């Protein structure tokens, strides 16, 4: 058979590798800054753009979509070409993909610090960027499948199965979760409300972990580990069963982020039991990765690349064991809302994604530049300081999470809560400081890597187009009786795509559809009414400032929570919440009933607290929001906002959009009047007035029922 010659596109791989290195440093640096802000709140310098609520989404987005995203494309663009024995389908598409993705990242960074956000965790980007992401993802898809279709290798290797599942599932998740109604170019409302929004969001959020941080990286592991260790993959049949089981089971697990919330019990149960069933399929990947190194342990001791990979796989194993444990309701009752969760995700992010990316970079850069790594010593140093960094990062946070949870739940013998919320915040401050030390160590390691790789790049020269040759695929494949049955689908990428989609769609449909269609899942409460225009504006400021990065709005049915915050939250209370703002962690106290019996405070209290939290709550780590007192509330869009709400079924009276601003002024005046009686002079058109109106409204509707 005639050999065809062709070349691999190494330049695009190099571009993604550079982007990975750049964004890793940026993302980690932002992370370090916000971790320090939790110890020294004034580190935000009093500037709106750099407050915790705006920088935290920047950190998470930079790490997930910029660092890991580029890392994933780097791994896929390198391995896919070799596994298919074909150049990428189209060089122009590769370039559009690369530059489009970098543009998205920059746009994301600029909008997030400007407070332009949808308010949904890990899906904060506003609608124009959402559309752009969809387009670039389609470009990536065409390039991916184009390459697969013109491949010169009959069967698809397991890494490619993972790439295909990644592509199709992320597309599905992103599109369904991003249904939103634009109000202006920079503002939209989530199409879903309350419980439904929460379910869709965490179905997305959890599977972003699964299909953005896990499956593509498993694919990368399946290529780079055997390559670097020069060992055969441990077990082909394990690959098959753990691949299908993983993608089928993962998609169901989203509701484990909503245990004990107002989500219907049946959905919570599904989230929990599927998480438990996920242990084995996840560990299948770990076993296959680790045992591939069987017989190569001597190499592991020698080779920094393999060292990084071994720790990465071990961290993957730990995180995927801990995750299901945290999904057990009684464990979740302790861990949820605390920093335990933050520790958990960092085992995954720093250990699994970080270390695997570093391992791949240390292997790939010398290969691309046809030279040796500049310094093995520095790489070993990076390995040790990185590993210690992870340990120093997560241990204090586990301790902090545990301490905080016990303190929240502690009662005196008289039956009173033993600790104020503030005392739990000041108690864990030292652990936050330790965490920052761990984080800095990890960052130092990454900087050393950057130096090492730049030196390596200077030593070598890039082979932009790497010649290779292989026979073309001709004719039909004649299968042998000894073939494994799974070989059938490995020859058929389209069928593999369709089956993957079916697998991931099942769980999604069974959980989402009944929550939308069956009324009894969200019992309505007659006294719950839409927000007034001023409260709506205040709510949007709450979203803009990212208050839900520190404050939850979901009181679980536990004595320790109803005693502290008031009646537990009910599904019917959130029916007009576009988007939902339940939050996922309590760096500050829950605010769902901030206006209710237990927590109600005078307007003046809120005013003083928002201007300078420490003056009211000594030791508070909440940022000050002085600009809310200076900036005028933009009321030009009130009508448009009301119209958008009406379109989504919020029952404002007909034509209310035209008179909404009158009501807004009226309510604002009365708040300003009340503040004036308490010696606080502020004009009624300032943003703070809207925020106060919103806070005072929170959680009050159910009391009107009595």
């Amino acid at each position, binding site marked *: 058979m005639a050999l065809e010659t062709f070349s691999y596109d190494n330049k695009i791989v190099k571009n993604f590798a550079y982007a990975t290195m750049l964004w890793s440093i940026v993302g980690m640096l932002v992370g370090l800054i916000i971790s320090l802000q939790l110890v020294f709140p004034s580190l935000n310098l009093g500037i709106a753009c750099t407050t915790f609520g705006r920088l935290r989404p920047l950190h998470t987005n930079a790490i997930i979509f910029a660092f890991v995203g580029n890392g994933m494309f780097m791994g896929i663009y390198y*391995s896919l070409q070799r*596994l298919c024995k074909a150049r990428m389908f189209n060089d122009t598409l590769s370039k559009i993909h690369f530059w489009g993705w970098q543009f998205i990242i920059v746009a994301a960074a600029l909008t997030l610090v400007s407070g332009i956000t949808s308010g949904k965790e890990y899906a904060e980007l506003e609608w124009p960027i959402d559309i752009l992401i969809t387009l670039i993802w389609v470009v990536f898809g065409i390039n991916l499948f184009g390459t697969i279709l013109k491949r010169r290798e009959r*069967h698809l*290797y397991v890494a490619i199965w993972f790439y295909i599942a990644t592509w199709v599932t992320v597309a599905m998740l992103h599109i369904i979760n991003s249904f939103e109604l634009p109000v202006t170019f920079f503002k939209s409302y989530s199409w879903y409300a309350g419980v439904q929004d929460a379910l869709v969001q965490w179905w997305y959020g959890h599977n972003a972990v699964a299909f953005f941080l896990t499956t593509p990286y498993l694919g990368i592991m399946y*290529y780079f580990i*055997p*390559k670097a260790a020069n060992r*055969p*993959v441990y*077990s*082909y*049949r*394990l690959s098959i*069963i753990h691949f299908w089981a993983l993608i089928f089971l993962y998609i169901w697990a989203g509701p484990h982020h909503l245990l*004990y919330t107002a989500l219907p*019990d049946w959905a*919570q*149960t*599904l989230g929990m*039991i*599927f998480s*438990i*069933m996920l242990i*084995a399929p996840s*560990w*299948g990947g770990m*076993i296959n990765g680790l*045992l591939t190194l*069987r017989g190569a*342990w*001597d190499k592991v*001791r020698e080779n920094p690349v393999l060292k990084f990979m071994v720790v990465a796989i071990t961290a993957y194993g730990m995180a995927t*064991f801990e995750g299901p*444990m945290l999904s*057990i309701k*009684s*464990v979740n009752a302790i861990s949820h809302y605390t920093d335990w969760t933050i520790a958990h995700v960092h085992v995954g992010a720093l250990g699994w994604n970080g270390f695997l990316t570093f391992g791949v970079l240390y292997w790939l850069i010398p290969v691309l530049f046809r030279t040796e790594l500049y310094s093995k010593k520095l790489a070993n140093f990076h390995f040790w300081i990185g590993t210690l960094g992870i340990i120093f990062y997560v241990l204090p946070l586990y301790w902090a999470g545990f301490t905080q949870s*016990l303190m929240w*739940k*502690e*009662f*005196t013998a*008289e*039956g*009173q*809560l033993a600790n104020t919320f503030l005392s739990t915040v000041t108690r864990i401050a030292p652990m936050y400081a330790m965490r920052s030390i761990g984080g800095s160590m990890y960052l130092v390691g990454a900087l050393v890597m950057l130096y090492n790789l730049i030196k390596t790049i200077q030593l070598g020269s890039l082979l932009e187009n790497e010649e290779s040759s292989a026979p073309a695929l001709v004719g039909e494949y004649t299968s042998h009786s000894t073939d494994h049955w799974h070989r059938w689908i490995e020859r058929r990428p389209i069928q593999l795509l369709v089956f993957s989609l079916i697998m991931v769609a099942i769980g999604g449909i069974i959980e989402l559809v009944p929550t939308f269609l069956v009324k009894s899942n969200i019992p309505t409460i007659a006294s719950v009414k839409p927000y007034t225009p001023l409260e709506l504006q205040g709510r949007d400021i709450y979203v803009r400032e990212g208050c839900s990065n520190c404050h939850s709005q979901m009181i679980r*049915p536990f*004595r320790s929570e*109803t005693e502290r915050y008031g009646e*537990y939250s009910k599904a019917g209370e959130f029916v007009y919440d576009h988007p939902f703002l339940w939050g996922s962690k309590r760096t500050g106290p829950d605010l769902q009933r901030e206006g209710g*019996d*237990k*927590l*109600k*405070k*005078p307007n*003046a*209290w809120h005013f*003083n607290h928002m201007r300078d939290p420490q003056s009211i*709550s000594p030791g508070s780590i909440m940022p000050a929001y002085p600009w809310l007192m200076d900036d005028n509330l933009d009321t030009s869009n009130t009508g448009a906002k009301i119209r958008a709400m009406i379109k989504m079924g919020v029952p404002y009276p007909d034509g209310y959009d035209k008179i909404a601003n009158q009501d807004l002024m009226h309510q604002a005046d009365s708040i300003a009047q009340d503040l004036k009686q308490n010696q606080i002079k502020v004009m009624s058109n300032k943003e703070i007035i809207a925020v106060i109106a919103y806070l005072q409204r929170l959680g009050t509707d159910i009391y009107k029922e009595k």
Partner: protein
Amino acid sequence: MQIHILNFVLINISFGDWILISLISFLLLILIVLLNTLKSLVHEIVPPIKKENEKTFIDAIESSLTNAMPIDREEEILLDHNYDGIKELDNHLPPWWVAMFYATIIWAIGYLIYFHFSDSAKLSLDEYNDEMAIAAKEKSVFLEKEGNKVNEETVTLFSDQENLNQGKEIFTTNCTPCHGQSAEGSVGPNLTDIYWLHGGGIKNIFKTVKYGILGKGMTNWETQLTPKQIQQVSSYVWSLQGSNPLNGKEKQGEVYSENTNEIAPDSLKMQTKK
């Protein structure tokens, strides 16, 4: 606090056990991997003096756990796959892994049936109601025993220094944000003058502190302070009558006088006489 942590763990012993067991098994697994690594390390320094095919104890454990083909016989299960030089073995699924997978599936089905297709299980809200009922009972038993049962009807004024000092401490931690360092008033009213919005005197103050003035921002402190603590802080507040601090807030409410012949500030003396 220690005792409470212990209690807390004890109450949840069932799942606590569960975690422990899983954790230990997980650690065991890591241990085996580590031991194996150690073994190969030692072997590198001191070449093993063992006969062909002789199995060590650890080899036995490892192979019974993974059911893996020994490395020297790998050729037998090497598939003819070759992807950019990557080959694949076809090792058996590790038996413990298969067992774990089945166990989790069976557990999941059992859980689903128990909680959603039988009447015996308690869902979130049942659990909550139980928790509240138990707490209420424990609380009343405790308060009965401690004689800590003062309420707005039976409360009396403390005038001894110790209780007033306690009261002052409670005031400083909880009340100063709204009423000011010396109770001169800021967001909340001045508590040192003779004007009262909701009545002066120990009984009224106790009541205001206990139930709060909801809607106006005064918290219902009964959830955070014990009856005795409310008695202490109310007594302390009443002891501040006429202290006339700097920057006192302007008067709010009515002049308060108890229906006795004595005017308000003097009720303190009245108490001491008793």
